[in-house]
């Protein structure tokens, strides 16, 4: 059959039709001419006549003229690969739609990717949320950058005395001077966070209270949502119990949001306060991690406790916050405070200070410090561990990305034909990379979205984890721009990490070779194998780092739990009693306390009970300086006051001498029981019993050693044995309105609480009491260590699982690729064992390289974490050995299945497939 196509094409070439349109016209006319030719030949015309006639028809000018009027109005075609701005958006949209279709076609693959990323991004985001909340957020008040705290700065000898609250910056006298003399702040206020008991007797419960000076809410620019805030007119000397402001949360929780709240009163430590206002809902206080329930004027402190800090010249209890004048900087305000420091300290020297203490006190300097982020102990405690955990979770995400990259590579192989076809049809390589990256980005964004959900759950769990009976953590977690940036950044980073290399690889297919190949789409390029090996090695290395750090932190926590604190930790109940509501006459207070202790000791189930000023490891304590006659002077020691029977109750072990007893009555010469470390440090090998020492600088305040006890931990489990001095309550200088009893029992501690409460209630129902378990309190003190150990352990486990999956994938891939080679080897006489060994050797190489790099990384990373370890060094050989062994086992498990599959290849089948 004669083909007219070339003739037609040249005849209509002048029309310059779009390629597809031209092809259609050519095909249609060609068929027409062929049909006509056949018909004409059938009517007895010669072939030559027919062809001449048809050729004439084809070159009739009417054809061009007619066609020009119809088909010419097609839009001009767009040359491939040239984007203008608008078209780029359109094409991205097209890429995105294509990506959605591809993902829907492979739901399993998409789900694996999204889930892995959701876990990785979720863990990172959860930790970042906490970090953001404790470190980066600013106070929810107008212009927080103008706020600054006034405190003693650059003074290494700061400070001696009694410390209250978490931020004990100033004494009453210093605060009064600062308020009068400062110039940099338009307004300045003082505050003191404490816990008071709301309600009466047994019914009472602790509420978190802020005592604030009159300008406090003005400094912060906080407006009431109901009533009014505390103002300077409420805060004056001798104000007694007047008005209180409640927080919005407390108003809702305790008063059910009662609109008549301003008519009501709240009883705090037995004093009724008229409620005069409610703070706005977004104001949760100025301490990060803590909220407050009630605020009362600072002047009420003197009424609430008769022996409180407001009248004590050595009580550090006030925190000061000011708002800078418009044209003042923090630096300028700080300089002004430094300039007035010497005058302020000269005017406020506590009368009881001796020469050296006086000298230290006069050397203090005041300064201003930015507090736009609020005040926080959480920050100093958790900032470092949280950064560290963020690094660890970042590593987990890296390992997950390496796995996904492997998966993407495998998929890129499967899609080689698709890529080859698209290249043949004129797509450019950058265009293909863009398409594949869009697919990865879509998955990463979906993963990130799911990750945010996981993060919200995780971070709330973490906050619950950080909250203890004593210390409820309250953190603002609503997402802000930092969280959004962080998550988006992670998603984009993940896309680049797991999507870029496979995308580049996929775009490098050779269309000709790929389309001709009839195989399953496995291209045997050496480059791809190398990439997979590099991925596997980095996974092993990173897992090694995570595993080593997890082991270090878990073992640190274990060491701390198992360390001998020098006393019995278990089966001890701490009972706190507050007698102040009873208003006992001073003379009968000591007798009352002794009676209570005796009754509790007599309770069935109580093995022993004694009083102490500070339970060990409670983070609270009493430091002092002593002089040793003919020995060292001004020595730091730790002190505690205990009742007779304390050492027996705590099973502290009396080494020599005797315990206190009730015949040790108040006298100038105070009996002391000292710790071994005290004896070793100050008396050496000499017999310490009967030896004397003095309060530093006061020869008229002597102590006499009557006994020696074993060393105990005082503030923290991490500390080395310190010299400790115990003195007796029986010799106490004055009565106390509170007491802390340590109660040992072999029975269930919670069951004991009710019988203790009823005993106390029988003595006087107005007593306020609360209970905690010593072991729980000690464990709460290890919260930081436990958090790091738990999370790093979790990340370590996750990393090893991911690395195992990664290794399995790579080894399986290698086995498939070397199928023919293995078949050939077996045909030439290799035994199955040889093949098994060959594959395992491959694994060993990957593992060895990974472990070497990982160990080097772990060593350098260990230096950062060294300060957080206890009882082992960051280069602990045992830890390293355990990690290596664990990784080796995991690698063996991961490669055993593919290796056995390799060894069971049938050589004939494998060779036939070639």
């Amino acid at each position, binding site marked *: 059959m004669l083909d007219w196509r070339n003739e037609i094409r040249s005849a209509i070439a002048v029309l310059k039709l779009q390629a597809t349109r031209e092809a259609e016209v050519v095909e*249609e*006319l060609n*068929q027409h*001419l062929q049909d*006509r030719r056949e018909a004409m030949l059938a009517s007895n015309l010669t072939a030559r006549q027919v062809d001449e006639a048809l050729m004439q028809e084809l070159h009739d000018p009417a054809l061009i003229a*007619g066609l020009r*009027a*119809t*088909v010419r109005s097609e839009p001009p075609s767009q040359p491939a690969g040239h984007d203008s701005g608008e078209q780029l958006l359109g094409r991205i949209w097209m890429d995105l739609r294509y990506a959605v279709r591809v993902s829907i076609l492979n739901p399993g693959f998409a789900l694996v990717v999204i889930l892995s990323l959701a876990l990785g991004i979720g863990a990172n985001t959860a930790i970042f949320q906490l970090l953001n909340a404790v470190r980066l957020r600013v106070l929810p008040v107008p212009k927080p950058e103008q706020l600054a705290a006034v405190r003693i700065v650059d003074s290494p000898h700061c400070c001696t005395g009694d410390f209250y609250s978490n931020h004990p910056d100033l004494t009453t006298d210093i605060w009064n001077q600062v308020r009068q003399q400062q110039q940099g702040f338009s307004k300045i206020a003082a505050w003191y966070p404490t816990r008071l008991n709301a309600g009466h007797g047994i019914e009472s419960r602790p509420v978190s209270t802020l005592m604030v000076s009159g300008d406090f809410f003005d400094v912060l620019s906080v407006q009431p949502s109901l009533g009014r805030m505390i103002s300077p007119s409420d805060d004056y000397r001798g104000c007694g119990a007047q008005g209180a402001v409640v927080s919005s949360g407390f108003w809702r929780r305790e008063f059910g949001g009662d609109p008549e709240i301003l008519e009501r009163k709240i009883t705090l430590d037995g004093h009724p306060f008229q409620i005069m206002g409610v703070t706005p809902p977004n104001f949760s206080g100025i301490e990060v991690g803590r909220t407050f329930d009630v605020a009362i004027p600072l002047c009420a402190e003197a009424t609430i406790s008769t022996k409180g800090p407001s009248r004590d010249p050595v009580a550090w209890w006030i925190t000061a916050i000011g708002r800078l004048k418009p044209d003042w900087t923090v630096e300028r305000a700080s300089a002004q405070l430094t300039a007035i420091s010497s005058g302020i300290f000269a005017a406020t020297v506590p009368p009881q200070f001796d020469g050296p203490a006086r000298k230290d006190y006069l050397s203090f300097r005041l300064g201003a410090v930015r507090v736009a982020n609020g005040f926080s102990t959480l920050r100093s405690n958790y900032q470092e561990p949280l950064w560290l955990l963020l690094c660890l979770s970042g590593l987990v995400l890296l390992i997950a990305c390496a796995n996904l990259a492997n998966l993407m590579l495998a998929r890129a192989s499967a899609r080689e034909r698709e890529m080859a076809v698209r290249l043949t049809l004129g797509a450019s390589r950058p265009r293909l990379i863009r398409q594949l990256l869009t697919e990865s980005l879509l998955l990463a964004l979906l993963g990130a979205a799911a990750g945010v959900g996981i993060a919200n759950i995780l971070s709330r769990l973490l906050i619950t984890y950080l909250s203890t009976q004593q210390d409820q953590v309250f953190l603002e977690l609503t997402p802000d721009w930092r969280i959004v940036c962080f998550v988006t950044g992670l998603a984009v980073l993940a896309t680049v990490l797991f999507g870029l290399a496979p995308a580049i690889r996929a775009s490098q297919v050779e269309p000709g070779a790929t389309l001709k190949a009839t195989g399953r789409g496995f291209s045997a390029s050496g480059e791809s194998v190398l990439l997979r090996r590099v991925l596997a090695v980095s996974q092993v290395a990173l897992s090694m780092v995570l595993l080593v750090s997890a082991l270090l932190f878990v073992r640190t926590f274990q060491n701390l739990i198992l360390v001998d604190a020098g006393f019995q930790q278990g089966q001890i109940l701490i009972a706190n009693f507050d007698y102040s509501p009873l208003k006992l006459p001073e003379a009968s207070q000591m007798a009352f306390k002794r009676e209570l202790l005796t009754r509790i000791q007599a309770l069935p189930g109580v093995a022993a009970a004694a009083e102490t000023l500070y339970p060990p490891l409670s983070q609270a304590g009493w430091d002092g300086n002593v002089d040793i006659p003919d020995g060292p002077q001004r020595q730091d020691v730790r002190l505690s006051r205990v009742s007779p029977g304390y050492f027996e109750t705590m099973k502290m072990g009396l080494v020599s001498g005797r315990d206190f007893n009730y015949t040790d009555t108040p006298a100038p010469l105070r009996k002391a029981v000292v710790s071994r470390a005290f004896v070793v440090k100050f008396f050496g090998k000499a017999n310490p019993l009967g030896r004397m020492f003095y309060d530093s600088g006061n020869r008229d305040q002597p102590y006499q050693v009557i006994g020696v006890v074993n060393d105990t931990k005082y503030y923290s489990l991490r500390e080395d044995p310190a010299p400790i001095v115990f003195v007796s309550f029986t010799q106490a200088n004055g009565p106390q309105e509170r007491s802390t009893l340590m109660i040992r029992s072999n029975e269930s501690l919670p069951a004991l609480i009710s019988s203790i409460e009823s005993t106390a209630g029988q003595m006087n129902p107005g007593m306020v009491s609360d209970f905690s378990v010593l072991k729980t309190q000690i464990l709460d003190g290890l919260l930081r260590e436990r958090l790091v150990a738990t999370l790093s352990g979790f990340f370590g486990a996750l990393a090893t699982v991911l690395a195992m999956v990664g290794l399995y994938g790579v080894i399986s891939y290698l086995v498939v690729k070397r199928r023919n080679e293995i078949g050939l080897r077996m045909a030439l006489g290799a035994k199955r064992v040889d093949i098994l060994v060959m594959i395992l050797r491959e694994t060993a190489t990957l593992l060895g390289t990974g472990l070497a790099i990982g160990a080097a990384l772990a060593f350098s990373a260990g230096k950062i974490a060294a300060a957080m370890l206890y009882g082992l060094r960051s280069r602990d050989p045992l830890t390293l050995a355990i990690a290596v062994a664990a990784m080796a086992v995991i690698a063996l498990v991961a490669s055993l299945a593919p290796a056995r599959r390799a060894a069971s290849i049938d050589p004939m089948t494998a060779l036939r497939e070639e």
Partner: protein
Amino acid sequence: MDRELKRGSTELLILSLIEYRARHGYEISKLIEDRSEGVLTFNVASFYPLLYRLEQRGLIAGRWVEKAGQRRRRYYRLTAPGKKVLKAQRSTWRDFVDAIQRITEAERA
């Protein structure tokens, strides 16, 4: 046949031929030729521009159809607007022919 007369009527012829079934280009031109017993013939140059113009105006729609054992061909069918135009043209044409007939027959009678 006169060229002008032919162009005026061809649209109507094409539309009528595909009124009930889709046909390809050659089939349409062959049917016109056969049914007019050779009075009306078309060549490629006159027929396809017309066909494409009808398609462009949306009166007919072409579609490539592949049948087993045959080359694929472009089949044209009548669209909804095409049906309306056909109806209108048909009645106009009938009126015209009737008018011509009345005039020419009357002289003879």
